[in-house]
């Protein structure tokens, strides 16, 4: 019955799609001669997208997840979010540039098929099948998120961020949550509290500071197996803010002694060779963050008394302040995060004693304040380079929030309070299950 209704609806949909494709898009899409190549993307514009699915629980679940993922990508205006496949709303479809159709794949109904259709041309831009036997599991959620990212890639040329997770600290525990705010879990850590979580570029390993009896070592932990290793020389003293290099071969972190705190680099690949990159000289140097090419490190230093943003080559040479710094006027700075495209660095800076999130444009050295309400700290970039997650008290308690830098749209990611130190994962591979 459902199947029959869906067939009728699909025919109706295709018929409907053909009409607006001519009326609505002929000025921009019709090509009289020559070849139309590539994808047109106008920054700031959000094409409409509809997600339609037959009325069945599994389809509804997929439709809801995909619609939410597309909405959270902030690249579309999701115009159809209800599973009313039998009575497709003409207005909604007309307003859509794209339609995502959720359906069964094949005759055995052993899989769910996702298909992206460009309304103007009635062309199928992407098709993916998800095996039904894994429905409800974390792997299933990951597969749907990955399909959503593929939809974004097919439509906009760059993948979405649905198949990502965030690590953060809540009540001294290491937590993990999907980028859509679902599937929150506790990550078993070596000690408690655990601080400063960081992802390896392949998403398989994490690094964090564990508070154990002997000190605060940096611990490397494989997510799938829980296998752990302590970074040499960090067994004693305070060791914080680890950060993997973009190639995953090195790990930068801060090690504190009586003479100050310094940035060190550990050769993860060879499992040796910890090298100091800064000379404390009665100051604190910490929070290293790598440039995407792995050639430079930005970090925080208090060498000019007030902690400020600095940059150096990956071998520790050429250390200099980054951005405009007016002694006595520029507030203390912390928590830098280099953007995935290498064009900007996000950080927090005190404004009238309250930390706010800023973004420094490296080409112009212009600084843009992103937040202004409540305390906003610990920014971390999404892999798409346009979303930032940060800890904020704007809702009363300190929770994680996500902001889209292009539209300024905000959404709350966690609830319950006490969340801080978020670290956004890279895009996680569909074939790998990275949870314990």
């Amino acid at each position, binding site marked *: 019955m459902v199947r029959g209704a869906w067939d009728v609806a699909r025919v109706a949909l295709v018929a409907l799609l053909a009409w607006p494709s001519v009326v609505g898009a002929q000025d921009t899409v019709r090509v009289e001669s020559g070849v139309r190549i590539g994808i047109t993307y106008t920054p700031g514009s959000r094409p409409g997208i509809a997600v339609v699915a037959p009325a069945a629980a599994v389809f509804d679940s997929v439709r809801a997840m995909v619609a939410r993922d597309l909405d959270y990508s902030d690249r579309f205006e999701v115009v159809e979010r209800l599973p009313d496949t039998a009575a497709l709303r003409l207005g909604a479809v007309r307003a859509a540039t794209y339609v995502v159709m959720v359906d069964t794949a094949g005759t055995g109904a052993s899989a769910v098929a996702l298909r992206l259709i460009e309304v103007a041309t009635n062309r199928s831009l992407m098709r993916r099948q998800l095996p039904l036997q894994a429905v409800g599991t974390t792997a299933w959620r990951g597969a749907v998120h990955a399909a959503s990212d593929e939809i974004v890639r097919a439509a906009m040329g760059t993948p979405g961020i649905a198949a990502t997770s965030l690590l953060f600290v809540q009540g001294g525990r290491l937590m993990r949550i999907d980028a859509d705010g679902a599937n929150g879990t506790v990550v078993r850590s070596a000690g408690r509290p655990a601080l400063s979580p960081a992802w390896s570029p392949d998403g398989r390993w994490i690094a964090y500071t564990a508070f154990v009896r002997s000190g605060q070592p940096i611990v490397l932990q494989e997510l799938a197996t829980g296998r752990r290793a302590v970074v040499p020389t960090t067994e004693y003293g305070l060791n914080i803010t680890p950060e993997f290099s973009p190639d995953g071969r090195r790990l930068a972190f801060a090690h504190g002694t009586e003479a100050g705190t310094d940035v060190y680099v550990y050769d993860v690949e060879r499992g040796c060779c910890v090298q100091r990159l*800064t*000379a404390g*000289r*009665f*100051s604190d140097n910490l929070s290293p963050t790598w440039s995407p090419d792995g050639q430079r490190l930005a970090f925080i230093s208090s060498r000019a008394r007030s902690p400020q943003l600095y940059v150096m080559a990956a071998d520790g040479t050429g250390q200099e302040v980054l951005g405009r710094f007016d*002694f006595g006027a520029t507030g203390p700075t912390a928590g830098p995060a280099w953007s995935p495209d290498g064009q900007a660095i996000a950080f927090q800076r005190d404004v009238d004693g309250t930390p706010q999130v800023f973004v420094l444009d490296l*080409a*112009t050295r*212009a600084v843009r304040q992103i937040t202004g309400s409540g305390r906003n700290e610990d920014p971390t970039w999404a892999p798409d380079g346009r979303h930032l997650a940060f800890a904020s008290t704007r809702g009363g308690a300190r929770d994680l929030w996500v902001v889209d830098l292009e539209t300024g749209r905000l959404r709350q990611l966690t609830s319950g309070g006490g969340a801080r130190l978020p670290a956004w994962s890279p895009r996680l591979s569909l074939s790998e299950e990275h949870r314990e």
Partner: protein
Amino acid sequence: MRAPVALPLALALAAGGCALRSDVTRVERQLAAQQREMVRADSVRASNLASLARLVQGLLDSLAVQQDALTRLRGDLRVELYNIQQQLVAIQELTGQSQQRLSELRGQLEQRSVQFAAPTDPAPPAGAGAAPATAGTPPPSAPAGAAPPSAAAAPGNAPPGAAAPPAPTGAVGPPVSPEPTADQLMELALQQLRRGSPGTARIAFTEFLRRFPSHARVADAEFFTGEAWAAEQRADSAATAYRRVAERYPSSPRAASSLYKLGVQAVAAGRRDEARTYFNRVVTGYPGSEEAALARDQLRSLAPGR
């Protein structure tokens, strides 16, 4: 005959015995006196000793107090010294940053002066017709040269190297340099390097050195030429550039970086003696630099037996 001899002897003995008793008595008195004297002397000595002991104790207490004070003073001094050293580092850092800001301002001034000195086409004869209007041209009522404070005049708004052609006659606006200034060229080259185009960056640095051979950032250009070579995995060419920086511009902050990088290159190539030489040059020549601290670490790791 025997009786007359014995009698005087007996008398003498009797007389002698009487004298011995008195002597004994006297001696006893003397002894008693001496004993009293000794007791008194002992008492005096004991008294002296006691006062001496009190004196010594007082002295020791005083010394202990002094020692405490000294310890506190030493601690205070250490804290003060720490603060002073911290302030010195901060001053050094702020001085460096001030110099950087001055350099930026100097660059902007140069840019402005070049803009204002840029030649403009002679005005067309009256009635010859106005030049075609361009975007941003103010209304004809605006006086010539009275350019509005446009965004183009603000530093940083126009992308480096995006020099516009000379404004046509009649088009009012700030004259724009036909060629990038030294700072613009340097920024352009650095952007290319950061963007992963070391070859293009190297060409731009070479052009910088050709056009601005006496500019304050010449050492930077040489140094980043080396960095560009290094990004292309051309260690020998990079080393040549670094050596040139160290030899030609020893007072530049890039000199310490160059020597350090030469040392690191030598370590990677297994030339430990050569590496030690470079690191020692950093430590002795630039003891206050960050690179000196790094070089000391390297020297420790290169020590014999490690």
